[in-house]
């Protein structure tokens, strides 16, 4: 089947999609957007988190057909058109929140959504919002630092 949806602001179509394929598979293997990651493909780790009509979802649990006509934002859509990193991306780099980096794309999409909804999150809010995103390298401390940093920088800019 053919699936057509908007990805990071651009309409994209994928052909020959088998009905059982996930949105994650279509993004990674058919649309050349491998930024969303495949750590568990069971909806447990959050590494494939994308926003579907603004809502963070595990793209491994969304059938590709469910995305038909909808709006998807992936990690590849966070930076500016000129390549300028978004505030949360830059904060992850600066705070040392990236080690192997496999969890990073999903965490960025989740953190970006958190800060949009709650520009001054408490530590408890950050932990709750990111509790669906597993990281095995960092022990999460630098990820907390990064989200705090992104919130502070966003606050300064306003």
């Amino acid at each position: 089947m053919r699936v057509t949806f908007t990805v990071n602001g651009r309409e994209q179509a994928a052909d020959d999609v088998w009905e059982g394929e996930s949105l994650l598979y279509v993004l990674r293997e058919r649309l050349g957007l491998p930024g969303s990651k495949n750590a568990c493909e069971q909806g447990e780790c959050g590494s494939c988190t994308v926003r579907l009509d603004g809502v963070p979802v595990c793209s491994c649990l969304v059938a590709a057909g469910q995305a038909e006509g909808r709006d998807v934002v992936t990690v590849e859509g966070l930076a500016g058109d000129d390549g300028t990193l978004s505030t949360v991306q830059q904060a992850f780099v600066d705070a040392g929140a990236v080690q192997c980096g496999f969890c990073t794309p999903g965490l960025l999409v989740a953190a970006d959504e958190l800060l949009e909804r709650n520009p001054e999150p408490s530590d408890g809010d950050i932990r709750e919002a990111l509790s669906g995103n597993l990281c095995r390298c960092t022990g999460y401390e630098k990820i907390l630092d990064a989200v705090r940093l992104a919130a502070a920088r966003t606050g300064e800019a306003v």
Partner: protein
Amino acid sequence: MSTHQTRTEPAAAVAPGRTPTSLTQGTGGLTKGGIGESTLRPDGILKVTGEFAYSSDLWHEDMLWGYTLRSTVAHATIASIDTSEALATSGVYAVLTYDDLPTEVKHYGLEIRDTPVLAHGKVRHHGEPVALVAADHPETARRAAAKIRVEYEDLPVVTDEASATGPGAVLVHEGRDDHHSGHVPHPNIVHRQPIVRGDAAAAAARADVVVTGDYVFGMQDQAFLGPESGLAVPAEDGGVDLYVATQWLHSDLRQIAPVLGLPEKKVRMTLSGVGGAFGGREDLSMQIHGCLLALRTGKPVKIVYNRFESFFGHVHRHPATLHYEHGATRDGKLTHVRCRIVLDGGAYASASPAVVGNAASLSIGPYVVEDVDIEAIALYTNNPPCGAMRGFGAVQACFAYEAQMDRVAAELGMDPVEFRQINAMEQGTVMPTGQVVDSPAPVAELLRRVKARPLPPERQWETTEGADVRALPGGLSNTTHGEGVVRGVGYAVGIKNVGFSEGFDDYSTARVRMEVVGGEAVATVHTAMAEVGQGGVTVHAQIARSELGVTQVTIAPADTQVGSAGSTSASRQTYMTGGAVKNTCEAVREKVLDIGRRRFGTYHPAWATAELLLENGRVVTDGGEALADLADVLDGEVVDLELEFRHRPTQAFDLRTGQGNGHVQYSFAAHRAVVEVDTELGLVKVVELACAQDVGKALNPLSVVGQIQGGTTQGLGVAVMEEIVVDPVTAKVRNPSFTDYLIPTILDTPTIPVDVLELADAHAPYGLRGVGEAPTLSATPAVLAAIRQATGLELNRTPVRPEHLTGS
């Protein structure tokens, strides 16, 4: 030390559409970016934009997908395999079994080649690879594999020491002829290492208190997030180009090439982006399988495990049973330790022999004990194979000896930290192996530091709007607002070796090139070091800046076109490949200075007389006088060297007494855990897990703290949640998923304050001490000690589950 100038160029395989890229980073501005600074990762921007190419992201025009059919039973003979229906499936290009292996070499292994590439007549564990499929879509491959008919005839399963070595035990491997087979007491024992020093029996007679304990350590999984994956591309010269996530390219190469029947130079390996490792990528996974399918079909083949398969696709941390006896005098001095550590190595040897050596030699912890009687063994069973995981044998021992230390202190009525400090080793202490600890060992100081830290306030969950359940045991399940919640505090300290031990020739290679590009002197560092997330690429650039005075350093992709960098494991890479980069840079610097002397020596006497350094793009004297710009010195010349670097040699442990200078370096960390336990439901919230660690020299403080926090969290995981559950009757894995194998989330993980000491080891590059593993040791026993203090329960196994705390 030797120089390799001969280099092979890769044959003309068509490069994949998405491949690993060089990382170039300048520091800009006034930042020097050398060692000791928290420079940022050169791959950081690629990783936050989603552009970094992990091994599962690789793509090639016309590529096929490989899939592995695995055994559904733990121990059985294979009566028959029928692949006809699978082969007839539309979209399937190849189905391979043992009979299709191209050469006489059909096994591989890190140390003992006992692991079949594909099962031959028998399977020895649940999930063993039996057949391979290549198809045009991953789902086609999976469905075709499901059509392969394998007829199993069950064999009795060996699951523990009793069934492995008791009368009439079934042998997991018949006819062993490996180099351990001659000294082990039973063919189902992979390796045995006793250590005997002093006279434990006589010392026991002097003890005022003797404490014995039996402990159980569950099977932990590395649970790296990037699944096993890679892309094999057949080349026109009959060889293969393999892009893969691994911890040691050259070790893989040594195991892969003979099975393919290819010379090593025709198996060109390039490291792809690695999504964590923690020991789980020391053994091969899809490497040979992908190459076999690519060579058979003549097409590029990509294999990506899903999480379910990943749990079967790599070895785990050895589960262990440990028996300990500690004695002490009334004044708090340890008299002796007797212990026996039984590690379950599972069906294949993997790293078991080295894990045994570590468990035995580090079994009494960082304490002074002159009279010891130690034995460690690893079993062959039909359980999942176990091998390397962060901490490597030292983790299991630390869990048990630290529990013992608390119990002895309690028997003596002493403070557990003070008791540890009385017995703490220091520089000059003799290990049970007879090895003298010849660099700082600040064990008592690390304990003092974690203890001196202010405790987190009580009842932190209380807010003006009621309880914040996110900070309570049970979390958002909203199971308590503080009722039945009890706090406990626990301490632990551990000792880990750094580098490969027991006489292994553990070297690393670095190639460094210095030249002028765009009017600026720049350096390129090329090693085969596996960057698995630890930040080796960051420190390599820092080292090159410090040694060569350049700003811009390019880290070339790691591949087998340069000499071995050894393994990214054993906390060794900054020491070893960092040491190799330093070593090669020093040689490059000498060449550059020779060029400078030749060109400019006649203009200034300092070229001949002063100590010369390369700093900020210039040649300067140690007095700070600038002699020339590096760009002018080099002009058109290129300096390019590849050198090996070795740590000081170690010795094998004597097979009867365990004596020998077996280790390169020791590292130490201490933890204090603060927990809150819902005693009614048996739920644990770790409130804080503070760590103090000596790192010798922090080359990149930000990365060092990140390593310590990450290692600490893995130790927390195996304290309260992480365990692969293997059915004791069938030896089948019950929980191969992140639904049932839990790793800590950000809500499970507490604040982890880190206190870094830098006491230089004079034997090591820059005085540094390997960092990665030590924090994984003491985190677990510290959490257990805190839970014991909160509950008053004995708790002799880890991980602790709710039923262990509620008694039901």
